[in-house]
């Protein structure tokens, strides 16, 4: 498909479906691979025609929303068509009284939140970069933020999904009501499928009343184990928090936006430190009336070193959600690993991380959902020894090898050069043959995001 004549045919075909204006040839590279064509359909039906054409012509398609998470995953052999959902915008249905909303995939999540906010409602969802990330992209990547603690991920409140399969079928699962068991739960299947099963064109969600006021409590501890003991005490207490986030000693350095990337690209604390920082933090967010918040304050007592509300609080949680982005804004060569653990395995995993980081010349920085066991781990290169590709590979293997059974660790970011040397996704606790069987059942030619996901 690399010849000019072939490309001209593709442009003509795509143009006949979506209009010439909506087919372009200039795309940003994804992991060093530049998509040959970019197409932006205006409806699920147009999307279906594009996919049917691609499927018949054996063209590899990468669905794309706000391009905020495209670096995740393996290096694709080629991308013939980048299918952009940006023209699939607008709200399909929203009646505040129903507490449900249906939106097209290309709408940004920020826009959805603004619409809901006008009615004092929200989706309790605070993954990174929601001003650019689209609804379809958020569902496809299964990304989560600190609010996962109380509300779960999008999977837990996505009530309907419309998508287009590789062979051009427009299909759906669920609907627009909050409780529905008719047919298979295709919402769960699409959530976190990274565009490998279908192109998501629309999603519906259960929405929630927006908390009228919140307050956050920052608690500091001398060691990881003390911090985790406190976490366990808190999630077993009658207090119910919106978020319960663990922040490692180096974490706070990345809780502000990056002004410019570090050059050279290595760990360089903003202020010179004589002693290695050792303070672990647990950040708690609560909601309720003044009376209720007073109870939190009373029960937490002297362990709280800082309280946040208003704009400071918003900024703090936004930065926690954007931790990964803040890291990458400074260190383009950082290694970022999402780690999923049983709750009590957070401690062993982080002790393992400390050892591995030292062995492979990285500085670790971590934020994570301390009581759900979902951590964002960043490993920052040290100046003494700019890491080689193999160093990333060995570091990840060593870390995975030390994780307790039942954990999984997927690499969300590392230099492209390193990606060929190890398994980006690692081992899942779910059966991989069944994952492949599912993929094969609806995309037998493997045209969707070939070579990028675990399947």
């Amino acid at each position, binding site marked *: 498909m690399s010849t000019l004549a072939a490309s001209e045919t593709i442009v003509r075909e795509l143009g006949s479906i979506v209009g010439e204006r909506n087919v372009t040839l200039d795309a940003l590279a994804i992991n060093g691979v530049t998509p040959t064509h970019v197409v932006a359909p205006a409806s699920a039906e147009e999307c279906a025609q594009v996919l049917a054409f691609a499927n018949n012509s054996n063209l590899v398609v990468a669905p794309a929303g706000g391009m905020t998470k495209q670096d995740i995953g393996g290096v694709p052999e080629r991308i013939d068509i980048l299918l952009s959902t940006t023209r699939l915008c607008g709200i399909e*249905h929203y*009646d505040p*009284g*129903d*507490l*449900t909303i249906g939106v097209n995939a290309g709408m940004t999540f920020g826009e959805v939140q603004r619409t809901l906010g006008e009615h*004092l409602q929200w989706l309790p969802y605070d993954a990174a970069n929601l001003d650019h990330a689209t609804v379809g992209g958020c569902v496809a990547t*299964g990304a989560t933020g600190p609010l996962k603690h109380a509300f779960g*991920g999008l999977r*837990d409140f996505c009530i309907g999904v419309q998508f287009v399969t590789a062979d051009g079928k427009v*299909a759906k*699962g669920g*609907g627009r*009501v*909050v*409780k*529905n*068991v*008719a*047919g*298979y*739960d*295709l919402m*769960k*299947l699409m*959530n*976190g499928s990274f565009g490998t099963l279908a192109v998501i064109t629309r999603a519906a969600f259960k929405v*929630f*009343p*927006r908390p*009228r006021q919140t307050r956050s409590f920052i608690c500091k501890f001398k060691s990881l184990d003390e911090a985790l003991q406190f976490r366990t005490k808190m999630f*077993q207490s*009658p207090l*119910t928090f919106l978020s319960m986030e663990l922040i490692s000693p180096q974490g706070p350095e990345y809780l502000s936006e990056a002004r410019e990337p570090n050059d050279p690209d290595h760990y360089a604390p903003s202020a010179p430190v004589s002693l290695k920082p050792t303070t672990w933090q647990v950040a708690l967010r609560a909601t*309720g*009336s003044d*009376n*209720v918040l007073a109870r939190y304050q009373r029960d937490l007592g002297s362990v709280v070193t800082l309280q946040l509300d208003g704009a400071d609080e918003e900024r703090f949680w936004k930065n926690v959600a954007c931790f990964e982005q803040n890291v990458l804004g400074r260190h383009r060569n950082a290694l970022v690993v999402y780690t*999923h*653990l*049983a*709750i*009590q395995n957070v401690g062993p995993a982080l002790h393992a991380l400390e050892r591995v980081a030292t062995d492979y010349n990285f500085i670790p920085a971590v934020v994570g959902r301390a009581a759900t066991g*979902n951590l964002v781990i960043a490993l920052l290169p040290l100046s003494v020894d700019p890491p080689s590709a193999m160093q990333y590979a060995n570091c990840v293997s060593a870390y995975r090898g030390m994780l307790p059974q039942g*954990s999984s*660790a997927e690499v969300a970011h590392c230099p492209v050069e390193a990606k060929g040397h190890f398994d980006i*996704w690692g081992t*899942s*606790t*779910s*059966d*991989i*043959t*069944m*994952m492949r069987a*599912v*993929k*094969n*059942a609806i995309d037998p030619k493997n045209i969707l995001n070939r070579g990028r996901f675990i*399947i």
Partner: protein
Amino acid sequence: MLDKPEELMMYEYDAGVDKSRPGAVVFAQNTGQVAQIMTLATKHKIPVVPRGAGTGLSGGAIAKKEAIVLSLARMNKILDIDIPNQRAVVQPGVVNLELSNATAKHGYYYAPDPSSQKACTIGGNVAENSGGPHTLALGVTVNHVTGLEVVLPDGRVVRFGGKAQETTGLDLTGFFVGSEGTMGIVTEVTVKLTKLPEHVTTLLGIYNSVQDAANTVVAITQSGVTPAALEMLDGWMLRCVEENVHAGYPTDAAAVLLIELEGMTEVVEEAAEAVAAVCMQQNAREVRRARDEKQRQLLWLGRKTAFGAVGRVSPSYYTQDGVIPRTKVPATLAEIDRISKFYGLIIGNVFHAGDGNLHPLILFDARDPVQKENSKKAAKEIMACCLKYGGSITGEHGVGLEKMNLMPSMFTEEDLTVMIQLRNAYNPDSILNPQKMIPELHYCREISGPLPTAKVEPVAGLPV
């Protein structure tokens, strides 16, 4: 194993409307046996229908005579209660309430609470993605399952997920929940345990008009309060239930709302005041609050035994499970009232109002062919009404046999084709639970069979 006609009779129905006598019933004791049975079944092309307690309401556990029923009821051990990780690992035959009873002493419980929770099994809950009154705030089964061990139709044993809340790759755990036994047989389930709330209170809003009660539902959800449960019983149901359990329901009311609030004491107290005010604004005649735990349990007993109470009044009734957007509750109830009058059939309403999940019960005399026919017509009209408002044909009872022929009115041929393609990845020869969920044939239905009797009683302190 059972294969004598008199033994098989017990297994020819579930709590739903369909009935068929299986060829044999086999009781598996462990995963290995399930795998062996499935290997043999696939080899000899014998259909297998998995079964828990048989409390399902959509015929999911009904097997034809050429099929065998594979009962998981004897795989009923709680394997692990892991409080620090907030998880329990159970075999599929563990009774829902038994798990909550076992964890209550640690201050935890298993949140999904179908009305049949004293008898239904966790394995069955996983198959049906069961709900219950308390799913309004806490979600349904799929929100509480993190890991599964599954035997595939060809006898392979696979694992999805575990104690961690997420894993790398596709969410095959979430996808499996609610697959109604058409993808594999669950032999082990890892579930989340939920902290028992510090404080629980139950309000009873009493109304002279069904519409006012329905309007209150919308108003409460808009007020910023999310109750743990928000249930509605109409006047006919009230009288029926009151006769049965003497819960103190006002028998002259047109409808009541049963509203449960739980959480931190301060939050519950504030919410109770706010909700009571909303009820009064929406013309409630009176708002009562359960004075003590005993009274609260009694109020809930009325709700949870409502179906049984109806059974005493009418030998035959047809339970619907439609879902509508919340704002359409008033209009739908008006429509059901119209349908009831048009066919001259009593239709009682008891349902999860907060979720918009209706359970109209159509009463009829099975000996009267006209009434029987009319009950089906009325049911069809109610379902059509739910779909017209953008709702669903089932909120928690599943499609099973009963609603298979309604699937095309909710899903297009392309939707159903994708579902069949996916099912075939797991169950290519349709050996497992054939002819369920995805439509292939049309069925007519009749009502029969008693509800399963309770096996487990709740322990003190558990939300009911």
